């Protein structure tokens, strides 16, 4: 599964994209829990879960959106375009 990070989440994780084995995670929230256990960079990036937004296969979702079979999961802060 391709996992993408944008804005300050990208900076804190230290990568824009990485291939990750979801390791049984069935929602975005569970995937974040797996990542946090893996490395302190993720614990820092995902310290404030209220500031984390999720897209699954390029569709806006939330922390409880299922990620089974997804090709691409993205994490980013609230958007600030326009």
């Amino acid at each position: 599964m391709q996992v993408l990070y944008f804005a300050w989440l990208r900076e804190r994780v230290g990568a824009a994209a990485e291939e990750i084995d979801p390791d049984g995670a069935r929602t975005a929230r569970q995937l974040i829990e797996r990542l946090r256990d893996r490395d302190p960079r993720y614990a820092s990036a995902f310290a404030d879960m209220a500031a984390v937004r999720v897209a699954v296969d390029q569709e806006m979702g939330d922390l409880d959106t299922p990620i089974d079979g997804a090709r691409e999961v993205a994490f980013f802060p609230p958007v600030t375009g326009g």
Partner: protein
Amino acid sequence: MSISVQREPFDLARESERLTAGRHDVGAVVSFTGLVRASTAEGHITGMELEHYPGMTERALERIVAEARERWPLEGVRVIHRYGPLSPGEQIVLVLTASRHRQAAFEAAEFLMDYLKTRAPFWKREHGPSGGRWVDARDADESAARRWEPESS
């Protein structure tokens, strides 16, 4: 082609003419141009960088445009959003709407801007004298977007 995500500046006059060329059924064209301001809530900035999510950005903008077309009788819509480094005074975004009457054109343009601000994956990083900082999302933008949702009114 009603949406574009690009590094290059846009040409308001050309886009506006494209929307109405040879048309005799358009009575109202509204444009919104967003520009980089040198002074923000956080102080003076020397420039900004707009990051986006290639692929998803286009999908999100297409969806927002489709929703505007469902809600208002539009004869034409155009949305252009830039990304990359931008200096104060430079264009960020263009929204153009064409309709028979002015109310639809105005409302659709406001709707497009409100949704684009809260539903399209762009992130601004401002550069100032004390370095760079990611811009925080504004509650006011979220409230502005919510006014278009019937259940909240």
